């Protein structure tokens, strides 16, 4: 029996600049999460850092990215101190797969872009079997600007 899903859980629209955004108490009734971001950060281009469950432990995150900037392609890995060095461009969509499962690390895939400079795809892994109950987004020493939106959806399986 088909089950309607892709359920909107919460949208955060910033009324003023903010250094971080957190989705807390994420319900465990879905299998995947999708986060859609459309916004900007103050100052020069900044990367977005993502924490699961408030975990800032160095070495618990790893990521691999693939980029095109209009003239060349490049790929790099990120092992930041307790965070994932995702891109904070104009838009990104994150698929957090099996976020409520407790038998595996949490691997996600991202599509991100800044129309002025780059298009990127990223895979990242949080090396923890815990279910994800919160997501925190930060930018590197900058703020998300007013009007930035973060929308979270749940997908059943």
């Amino acid at each position, binding site marked *: 029996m088909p089950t309607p899903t892709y359920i909107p859980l919460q949208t955060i629209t910033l009324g003023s600049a903010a250094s971080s955004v957190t989705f807390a108490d994420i319900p465990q009734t879905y299998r995947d999460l999708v986060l859609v971001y459309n916004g900007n950060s103050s100052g020069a281009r900044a990367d977005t850092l993502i924490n699961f469950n408030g975990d800032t432990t160095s070495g618990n995150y790893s990521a691999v990215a693939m980029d095109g900037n209009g003239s060349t*392609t490049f*790929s790099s890995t990120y092992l930041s101190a307790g965070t994932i060095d995702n891109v904070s461009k104009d838009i990104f969509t994150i698929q957090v797969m099996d976020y409520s499962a407790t038998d595996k690390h949490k*691997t996600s895939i991202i599509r991100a872009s800044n129309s002025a400079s780059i298009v990127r795809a990223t895979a990242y892994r949080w090396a923890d079997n815990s279910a994800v109950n919160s997501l925190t987004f930060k930018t590197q020493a900058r703020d998300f600007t007013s009007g930035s939106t973060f929308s979270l959806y749940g997908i059943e399986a």
Partner: protein
Amino acid sequence: MIPLGILAAAGGAVAAAGSYDLLATEILTGTQATVTFSSLGTYAADYQHLQVRMVARSNRGDTDSYLYVQFNGDTASNYNHHYLRGTGSSVGSDVTSASYPSGILDINFLPAATAPSNSFGVATLDILDPFETSKYTTARTLSGQAGSGYSRIGLSSGAWRNTASLTSITFDDIFGSFVSGSRFSLYGLKAGA
């Protein structure tokens, strides 16, 4: 809101509640070489596109394995496939139909036995117009795995050179078997009025 740019979960826009349905899920409780969704014709009247969301790992004795996607049980050389892949140090692109002709291939997705414990690869597979009989069935994936020693992020697309309406999808770990905890979920995106 009808999805913009086909399937939202592949990284585009967002589907509206009521337009995106869970149709079936397989969560493995033991090793299994293949996973098949069958009798898909029952969805033809209601859905325009399909999506599969996958979380998987292989028992192959290596860092990674390869995944075939086969339609209607066809294992002949009726597929095209190409990919764009980032390894952490370089970006490459290739056509793989010559070496692996028997399915649409994803080579960025399946960590295997020597990959870090509990690490799984993930992918979204969009299958466009699978029930239309005037065109080949075309698919695309966004897939990846991240971890020490072996990381991949990839975009790929492929076509099954057959105009038949889709009746089954088979996922084949061609060098090993999917391990327990691997998950394959099938979704349908409804057609507009």
